[in-house]
């Protein structure tokens, strides 16, 4: 990388020189761009979010589900999109391409070309009247062209902005000055054919590039007959077929005849790991998305028989392995190792004959109804031209080997798949990291360009009779397909207190929010019930909307008629409808008793605490310091460095030891960081903004640290094997021991004639059913290094799947080219290592040779040992009030969209504490965690929840039971009045105290007993109807 040194400076030093501009241009409105924008706005910067398409959302917006939780993609993305739309500090610029980027860190000028939409976003309500009257049919891009839409249309129901757009190429008016129906029919007068393409330059401090990727053009692999064979579709198309809001409403049918699919095949690695199309890399996500699609297809059509044809099953991420094994063993997804060499269509049936070489090398043929090509990810356009970035041989942005968000160009950060194929959580992590790095350069200008949202003053609804409005959401067909929504609306209308009820296709879409505001105002509603999905994801959105209508946001209640109803009673629509009605009744009854709540405020100590001084911890600390915050860094060991001290060089040959040392030096030099080595955490008290942590050194001396946020970077451990003669025979090494000897250029290595590496030692086993993610790459890397050291040395790698995802695939290929022999063994067998009269011998049935036993006499056996969770996590978790998973790694708040957050406010996680990962991934996560912490530390106050306990002093007899029941010690005793008092900024709102108060003096606001009693009564009375 040309100016790596320079780009490293991008973060901090350059910013000191002149006053930066407190705004950032984010290029690309997919999940990465959305995340970066929200973070930046939250940290106090003005954001321009430019996307070349007419709506933000990116590819994630087209996905039906996400792995490995099978969560509905749109359901988790949509609230974020709406947040983008409603954040006044984020300016969304659609149909925009970057023409040029000029200037330096802190002061950059981005020139955009903005294509005309021909619809005034400010006027369009997204009603769809124009679409109904537009005569020009076009393939619907949102549905991957599988069905049609009209030339003028809202891109998709949840689009942001939720306004229509006209395709100028086919518009009759724009091409022939004919028609103009839309202008006539639009009551809002939003259609504007006078709009012209224009160029505009934006002044910003930094640029974050998040343009995502380009799907591989499947037509290039002619042997699969994509575009010729009707029943061969791409995975993106299949995603839309699975989508309940897709062209077939989620029915798994074939394009040729609309028949239900019985035999379904997935062809993996289409356009990936394939040098013939110039893509030597692995696309990292296809194995998992194919597994997901197979599972979802089965869910939609239980009789379907999905088969996945693959080379290696790359289930390397957190919980991926469990997902994959469950798919195979419990859900009947068939996995076949084999490379598809050709697809032939049967003329009459349009069925497809797949020809493939099985592992034994024999050619097989099998017939399928539908074939899905798992297409890879290619580099997006515009990295080089518009953004001026250097790209690698595959066209992806060149990046710093340790912190990949740093591009070749200072001032331009890059995140997500534009830099390397990656999945959603990694993209979100990087986007967050990029926001943090940008802030390091710009923090001098924080809050300078910010506009603050004033909600309309809250209407005083105190003495008013409850006027409840009820919205019943169809959620496309997710609810509407199983629940008789009109019947629920009718039922709701009859409920006491309900003055208005209506249904809505997507209650969460952007235009729906405007509509809600309007109906609240028009009908004088003072309580709102939305019957849709789970309040866990959507309540904040609706509350915000309610607030913008001048109604206290706590006067809101949700009925979950999707996750808890339509989706779990899919075979019994009548019962589902009745249950939905009952749930609505319960929500309405509670809503009638809701009262406006006031939120409290509490201060923030602008200091961070980082627990763990490994690579992740040191980076987190340095990042926070670079943004101008004081940091305490607590490390258990006597010296900083952690597990990375065992790694000597990375894929690009960089010296990891030097890197670790440099980090430690920087930590030492950094005045804002106070490092406490050989200290342990004794106790953590307090809460977001005001933590108090007690630490202790070896002599038992204690120090109390006060800080506003915590970053958990406790690292991991290495599995200590006892199998394979480890510990008994000195010729059995671990991968790290070998690496050390390579790095030290141990001369003895040159004489080694044969080395056998064994993969998955301690990983993907019953006790640790996860993939350690790094060992395959590590083995390939060391094998190659051995070969370089002495080409004569024979290297065998015994593996189960080679999981060299992303650009790591290159090193796997290079290793094979250098003569390293990779030989696979089955999941249910293990190689046998023994000492035969002084000769070290490895025996293993080779899966590629139909299980034939291979016997290798060898000089060295190298074990690729897995990564384990840090046992200290067990003690730390309860102190921090955060959960761990079954394997002992910390469990983040949300697998996809909150990868470094905990559910507990103000506590974040990064590195191996979270899951096994590579160094650069740890560094990215550390930057992300620091950014998240910064979003707290950069505020002068935190607004606390309204759901807290309060004690009615008149009713309290001062028995004091509640005092000792509070896990957060939020309740104190007023000695004078002899009553209990709740400190609302400490109270977390669990209600444990309230349940003990026999007098009902202590009440949890928003969950008062009388409100719950009403819910119970509503449930009971509904049933009695």
């Amino acid at each position, binding site marked *: 990388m040309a100016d790596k040194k320079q780009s490293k400076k991008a973060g901090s030093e350059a910013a000191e020189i002149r006053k930066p501009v407190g705004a950032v241009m984010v290029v690309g409105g997919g999940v990465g761009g959305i995340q970066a924008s929200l973070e930046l706005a939250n940290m106090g910067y003005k954001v321009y979010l430019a996307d070349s398409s007419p709506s933000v959302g990116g590819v994630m917006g087209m996905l039906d589900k996400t792995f490995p939780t099978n969560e509905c993609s749109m359901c988790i993305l949509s609230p974020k999109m709406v947040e983008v739309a409603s954040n006044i500090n984020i300016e969304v610029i659609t149909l925009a391409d970057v023409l040029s980027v000029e200037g330096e860190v802190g002061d950059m000028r981005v020139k955009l070309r903005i294509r005309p939409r021909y619809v005034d976003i400010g006027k369009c309500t997204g009603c769809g009247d124009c679409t109904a009257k537009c005569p020009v049919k076009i393939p619907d891009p949102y549905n991957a062209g599988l069905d049609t839409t009209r030339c003028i249309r809202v891109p998709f129901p949840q689009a942001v902005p939720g306004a229509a757009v006209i395709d100028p190429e086919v518009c009759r008016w724009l091409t022939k000055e004919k028609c103009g129906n839309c202008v006539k029919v639009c009551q809002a007068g939003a259609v504007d054919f006078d709009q012209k393409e224009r160029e505009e330059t934006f002044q910003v401090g930094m640029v974050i590039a998040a343009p995502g990727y380009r799907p591989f053009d499947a037509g290039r692999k002619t042997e699969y007959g994509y575009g010729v064979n009707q029943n061969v579709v791409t995975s993106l198309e299949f995603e839309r077929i699975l989508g309940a809001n897709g062209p077939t409403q989620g029915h798994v049918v074939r394009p040729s005849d609309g028949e239900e699919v019985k035999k379904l095949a997935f062809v993996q690695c289409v356009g990936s790991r394939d040098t013939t199309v110039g893509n030597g890399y692995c696309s990292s996500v296809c194995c998992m998305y194919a597994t997901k699609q197979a599972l979802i297809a089965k869910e939609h059509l239980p009789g379907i028989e999905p088969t996945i044809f693959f080379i290696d099953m790359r289930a390397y991420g957190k919980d991926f392995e469990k997902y994959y094994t469950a798919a195979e063993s419990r859900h009947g997804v068939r996995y076949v190792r084999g490379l598809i060499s050709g697809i032939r269509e049967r003329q009459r049936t349009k069925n497809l004959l797949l020809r493939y070489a099985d592992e034994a090398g024999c050619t097989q043929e099998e017939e399928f109804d539908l074939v899905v090509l798992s297409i890879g990810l290619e580099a997006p356009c515009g990295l080089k031209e518009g953004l001026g970035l250097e790209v690698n041989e595959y066209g992806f942005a060149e990046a710093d080997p340790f912190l990949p968000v740093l591009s070749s160009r200072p001032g331009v950060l890059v995140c997500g798949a534009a830099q390397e194929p990656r999945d959603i959580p990694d993209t979100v992590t990087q986007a967050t990291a990029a926001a943090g790095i940008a802030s390091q350069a710009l923090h001098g200008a924080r809050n300078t360009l910010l506009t603050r949202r004033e909600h309309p003053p809250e209407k005083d609804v105190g003495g008013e009779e409850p006027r409840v409005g009820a919205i019943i959401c169809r959620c496309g067909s997710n609810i509407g397909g199983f629940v008789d929504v009109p019947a629920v609306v009718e039922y709701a209308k009859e409920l006491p207190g309900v003055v208005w009820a209506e249904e809505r296709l997507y209650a969460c879409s952007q235009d729906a929010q405007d509509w809600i505001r309007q109906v609240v105002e028009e009908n004088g509603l003072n309580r709102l019930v939305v019957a849709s999905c789970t309040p866990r994801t959507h309540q904040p959105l609706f509350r915000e909307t309610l607030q913008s209508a001048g109604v206290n946001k706590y006067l809101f209640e949700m009925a979950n008629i999707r996750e808890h109803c339509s989706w*779990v009673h899919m075979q019994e629509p009548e019962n589902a409808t009745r249950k939905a009605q009952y749930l609505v009744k319960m929500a309405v009854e509670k809503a009638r008793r809701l009262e406006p709540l006031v939120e409290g405020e509490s201060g923030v100590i602008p200091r961070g605490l980082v627990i763990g001084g490994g690579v992740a911890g040191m980076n987190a600390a340095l990042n926070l310091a670079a943004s101008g915050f004081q940091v305490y860094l607590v490390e258990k060991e006597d010296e900083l460095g952690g597990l990375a001290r065992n790694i000597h060089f990375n894929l690009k040959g960089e010296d990891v030891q030097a890197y670790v040392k440099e980090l430690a030096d920087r930590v030492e030099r950094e005045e804002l960081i106070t490092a406490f080595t050989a200290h342990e955490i004794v106790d953590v008290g307090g809460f977001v903004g005001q933590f108090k942590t007690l630490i202790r050194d070896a002599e038992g001396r204690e120090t109390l640290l006060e800080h506003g946020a915590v970053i958990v970077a406790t690292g991991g451990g290495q599995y200590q094997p006892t199998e394979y003669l480890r510990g008994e025979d000195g010729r059995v090494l671990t991968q790290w021991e070998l690496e050390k000897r390579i790095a030290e250029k141990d001369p003895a290595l040159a004489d080694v004639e044969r080395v056998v590496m064994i993969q998955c030692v301690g990983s993907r086993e019953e006790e640790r059913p996860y993939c350690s993610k790094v060992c395959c790459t590590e083995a390939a890397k060391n094998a190659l290094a051995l070969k370089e050291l002495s080409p004569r040395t024979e290297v065998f790698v015994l593996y189960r799947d080679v999981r060299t995802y992303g650009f790591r695939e290159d090193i796997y290929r290079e290793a094979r080219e250098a003569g390293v022999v990779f030989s696979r063994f089955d999941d249910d067998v293990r190689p046998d290592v023994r000492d035969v009269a002084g000769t070290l011998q490895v025996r293993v049935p080779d899966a590629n040779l139909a299980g034939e036993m291979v016997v290798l006499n060898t000089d060295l056996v190298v074990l690729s040992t897995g990564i384990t969770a840090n046992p200290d996590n067990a003690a730390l978790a309860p102190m921090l009030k955060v959960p761990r998973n079954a394997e002992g790694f910390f469990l983040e708040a949300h697998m996809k969209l909150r990868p470094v957050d905990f559910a507990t406010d103000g506590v974040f996680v990064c590195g191996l504490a979270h899951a096994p990962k590579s160094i650069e991934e740890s560094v990215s996560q550390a930057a992300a965690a620091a950014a998240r912490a910064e979003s707290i530390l950069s505020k002068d106050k935190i607004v606390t929840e309204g759901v807290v306990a309060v004690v009615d002093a008149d009713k309290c007899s001062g028995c004091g039971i509640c005092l000792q029941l509070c896990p957060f010690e939020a309740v104190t005793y007023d000695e004078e009045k002899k009553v209990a008092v709740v400190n609302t900024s400490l109270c977390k709102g669990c209600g444990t105290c309230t*349940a003990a108060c026999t007098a009902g003096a202590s009440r949890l606001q928003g969950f008062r007993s009388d409100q719950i009693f009403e819910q119970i009564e509503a*449930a009971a009375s509904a049933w*009695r109807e």
Partner: protein
Amino acid sequence: MAEESKKNDEEDIRILAFLCNWCSYAGADLAGVSRFQYPPNVLDVRVMCTGTISPYFVIKAFQEGMDGVLIAGCHIGDCHYLKGNYMTAKRFQVLREALKFLGLEEGRLRLEWVSAAEGEKYADVIRSFTEEVKALGPSPLRGKKAAKAEVGA
């Protein structure tokens, strides 16, 4: 007529589930997202933590004619509020024994720990609890309010 309504009653088992927001409600969400099907006889009340669940809530539910009451929260050690569910565990023991002494069948009240990742477990719990309550039949405490409603109707 009486026979018929009794039969209907047997089918129409009413279960009220109190779910804590962070684990069990999320587990129920996951059951939904994963499309695990279970009987529709359960209505749920979301509370922030099972610690909020006063024994009064359960009494109220039975009083109102519920045939079964489920309390589901985070596993011990996983409570989002640390120890809220400790109190749930203790209160539950007392409550269950009290109801037993009163003569309400033990099977009508259940406490389960269901994590956010246990969608399948949630569905299983609902399935098996529904079966169990169905086998017990309508609650003997159902009568009064039901009768009242009939009079009203």
